[in-house]
């Protein structure tokens, strides 16, 4: 059974009005995503949701929407949760646990403040040393990558500069305007070698996807976007337990996704690489097989990821310049859907048939890869 995304929408991006709740954002996005598909709330019998602000998000959202789903999954693996939800939804629909599922996310972290938006979860063996999770964990990984491979701060800055150039083409991007490598390097330091411009934004926002079987999707309003392959990879929770700071479980999640999709990196037209920090896309390009281990720094240089570059990466502007509402994976999937439908406006990648979205959670802890395609691409994967 192939899974198809038949509706995709965002809500509450940037900064929401006082009093707005994560459920308001999820519900607004759900309504918009259902509208795209032509389905209604009464069709929804599967519910996937997660947010750091609700302990039982599928119960809260089901109550808010006034639905009684027969299947619910609130798997919480950070920013990659939503790629995992796609895979879980495929399994659930394949075995008949539900027919039409909504996958939703919402955050008001900018409105309520970072501390209030997250569960206080201190590791007693890290907390005494004053880390600023997650930034200090990514800083340690960055420092190690620079040490082992000679990656430079200028190469890291290239990732942020490319993201800003894409953001300048997106009307809903939170940060716009010129950004140079020099700007990134001279911004206030957060944790060496990462400045504030090496770090993702803190915004509100969320979104929703409506998914069903490809068979049912063919009868609905929009051209289906098909899940060609997906994989999960989990290794650790805290940075002090990450065995090798320069290799992530994206190696495993990517391999699983590519095998299932019967595709290779050269087949991918547009990429979403979870850019919580500038080191992330560099690590993921290596671990997903777009370049060799250690070559990510030189690979991203000279505007490779920017509009007009060799590889279309984070075409919405990424977590670095578009929006980053705490967990950003759902935003990435929405952008891939828009690219594959040809709805991406000024930032549209010509003839985009295959999109890879790679989510990351924790401190390089959870890695989930999903490969999406148009109907034509799906025909090649499933009949080829």
């Amino acid at each position: 059974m192939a899974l198809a995304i038949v509706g995709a929408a965002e809500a509450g991006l940037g900064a929401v009005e006082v009093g707005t709740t994560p459920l308001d954002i999820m519900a607004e996005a759900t309504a918009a995503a259902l509208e795209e598909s032509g389905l209604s709330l009464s069709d929804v019998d599967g519910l996937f949701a997660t947010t750091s602000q609700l302990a039982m998000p599928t119960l809260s959202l089901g109550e808010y929407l006034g639905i009684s789903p027969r299947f619910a999954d609130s798997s919480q693996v950070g920013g990659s949760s939503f790629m995992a939800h796609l895979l879980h939804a495929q399994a659930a629909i394949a075995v008949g646990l539900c027919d039409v599922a909504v996958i939703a996310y919402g955050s008001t972290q900018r409105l309520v403040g970072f501390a209030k938006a997250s569960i206080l979860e201190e590791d007693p063996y890290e907390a005494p040393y004053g880390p600023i999770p997650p930034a200090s964990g990514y800083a340690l990984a960055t420092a190690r990558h620079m040490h082992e491979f000679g990656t430079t701060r200028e190469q890291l800055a290239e990732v942020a500069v490319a993201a800003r150039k894409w953001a300048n083409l997106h009307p809903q991007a939170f940060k716009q305007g010129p950004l140079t490598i020099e700007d990134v390097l001279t911004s206030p330091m957060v944790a060496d070698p990462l400045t504030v411009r090496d770090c993702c934004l803190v915004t509100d926002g969320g979104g929703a996807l409506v998914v069903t079987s490809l068979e049912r999707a063919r009868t609905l309003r929009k051209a289906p976007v098909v899940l060609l392959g997906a994989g999960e990879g989990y290794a650790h929770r805290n940075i002090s337990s990450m065995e090798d700071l320069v290799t992530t479980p994206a190696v495993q999640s990517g391999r699983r996704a590519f095998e299932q999709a019967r595709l290779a990196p050269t087949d991918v037209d547009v990429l979403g690489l979870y850019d919580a920090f500038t080191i992330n896309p560099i690590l993921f390009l290596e671990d997903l097989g777009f370049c060799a281990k250690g070559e990510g720094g030189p690979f991203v240089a000279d505007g490779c990821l920017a509009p007009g570059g060799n590889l279309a990466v984070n075409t919405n502007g990424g977590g670095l310049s578009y929006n980053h509402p705490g967990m950003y994976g759902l935003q990435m999937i929405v952008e891939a859907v828009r690219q594959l439908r040809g709805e991406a406006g000024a930032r549209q990648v010509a003839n985009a048939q295959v999109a890879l979205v790679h989510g990351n959670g924790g401190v390089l802890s959870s890695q989930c890869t999903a490969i999406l395609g148009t109907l034509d691409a799906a025909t090649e994967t499933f009949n080829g």
Partner: protein
Amino acid sequence: MPSVAQEYRDGCRTGQLLYQWDEVSQKAVFYPRVIAPATGGALTWRISTGVGTVYSTTFVHRRGEDPRNLSLIDLDEGFRMMSRVEGVGPNDLAIGDRVRVHFADDGTPLFTKDTV
């Protein structure tokens, strides 16, 4: 019987950096656990020499405060822990530097660059 966290902290308060040993995998284990990771085997306590190598390092910048070091230390016995190397600025510490443990008044293990 005290919790593993309590046994570890008691060690720190008496100037001993404790870690655990898994007989099955013949590997050092840190942080303290009640079973060995991956093998599920029993664990015994050992005392570290407290000497190790900086695996990675950063300085955390908080508004209005001096940058504070945060490092991952690979102890010679084969386990890794997070700690802080004291007495160094951002230009005085590199990955690969040798460091040695000492204990703060509350028992928190900290490190200084090993000059031996």
